């Protein structure tokens, strides 16, 4: 479930970030609203609203897809803040240079700005993705069969909370650790030669 939510969520984040920086009034405002809403509501509430309230207006999603939609919106909103900040940190001069060569705005954003902005946003984005892995436990509250939910059910049957939840915690920690290492390797791989923090 997270494997599906993450790429879509990150893609959404890039769209929202770009819209807020480069969009005209309408796009920019719409993006800001979306971000504001989904950062403002707790993730669990967002999930519950999607799952319980949408059917009232005739939109039916299965628990799995409700969770995916909810996570995409929440992580997209949070990640877009990193994207937006990093876009703005790429020097304006490079933007001028790209346009002076005759590049269109989309070309400038795709080939010059985003490659640098996304590399800078990677630490923040990877942080959010790891959060998402851990927050996936919330999906159990709308009926998705996932590890935390199983742990809870198991606990209500056998009542050994310490062992059960500690074990669940360990599994999450193991997954998170794999993610930490994975992202560190990714950062190293996309690092721009010559641009290194002073040691």
């Amino acid at each position, binding site marked *: 479930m997270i494997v599906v939510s993450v790429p879509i969520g990150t893609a959404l984040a890039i769209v929202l970030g770009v819209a807020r920086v480069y969009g005209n009034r309408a796009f920019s405002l719409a993006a800001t609203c979306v971000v504001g809403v989904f950062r403002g509501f707790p993730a669990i509430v967002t999930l519950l609203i999607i799952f319980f309230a949408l059917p009232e207006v005739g939109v039916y999603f299965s628990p799995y897809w409700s969770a995916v939609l909810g996570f995409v919106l929440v992580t997209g909103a949070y990640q877009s803040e990193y994207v937006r900040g990093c876009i703005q940190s790429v020097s304006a001069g*490079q933007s001028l240079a790209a*346009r*002076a*060569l*005759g*590049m269109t705005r989309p070309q400038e954003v795709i*080939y010059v700005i985003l490659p640098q902005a996304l590399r800078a946003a990677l630490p923040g984005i990877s942080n959010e993705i790891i959060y998402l892995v851990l927050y996936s436990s919330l999906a159990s509250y709308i009926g998705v069969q996932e590890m935390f939910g199983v742990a809870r059910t198991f606990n209500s049957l056998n009542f050994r909370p310490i062992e059960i939840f500690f074990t669940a915690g360990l599994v999450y920690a193991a997954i998170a650790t794999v993610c930490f290492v994975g992202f560190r390797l990714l950062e190293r791989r996309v690092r*721009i030669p*010559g*641009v290194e923090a002073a040691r």
Partner: protein
Amino acid sequence: MAETNVVLKVDGLEKSFADNRILSGVSFEIDRGQIKVICGPSGSGKSTLLRCLNLLTEPDKGRVWLEGQEITNANVDVNSVRQRIGFVFQEFNLFNHLTALRNVSLALEKVKKMSKDEANALAMKELARVNLANDAHKYPAELSGGQKQRVAIARALAMNPVIMFYDEPTSALDPHLIGEVLDVMKKLAQEKLTSLVVTHEIGFARSVADEIMFMGEGKILEHGPPSQIIDKPTHEAVRLFFKRINELYRRDED
């Protein structure tokens, strides 16, 4: 579009930012193969002028023609105009995430729609022209200021522009690196590449420029050949400017 000898014509250019009148009516012409230099104190509007001419900044009033085509007309395709003007910035503005070669070839592929091989071949040729063939694979952070600026010049040249704009190209360089950039610019000037150069390098202007235009208070105060402007100017502000510069150099020689 008639084949004309006047590459750039400017008439009555004006630009203000908030309440600041930066350009208050600039007019001049540049013929094919001419090298014109703009000198003047900081704040006189030199950078703004260049940016208005390639439409990076929108002028408030005035008209500009590039090879006979009016580019200040609203219907003009801005991007195709900018392709024909090569712009070299004071802060280089290289694309930091790309090698020198890719910096030069990116626009060739994406804007001029060349194939990857064609673009790389042309990029290598331009880098060789600025004496950087051996550093093509290096990233901007690994290059010295002088090398970075030469990559920037190669990047602009590769687009085969009809005129080059240089906005204080050596002002951000350490003194010992200025020479290598000026040498490249002199070589291009000898090849009769039409150029408009904003610079404080009087020596360069004296030896290379066909004409110097002195800017002050948002206008061209005086223009003429280097020997006139530098040594025997008529306008008071111009005289004062060069007198101070001469004093500065003389003081250094003591």
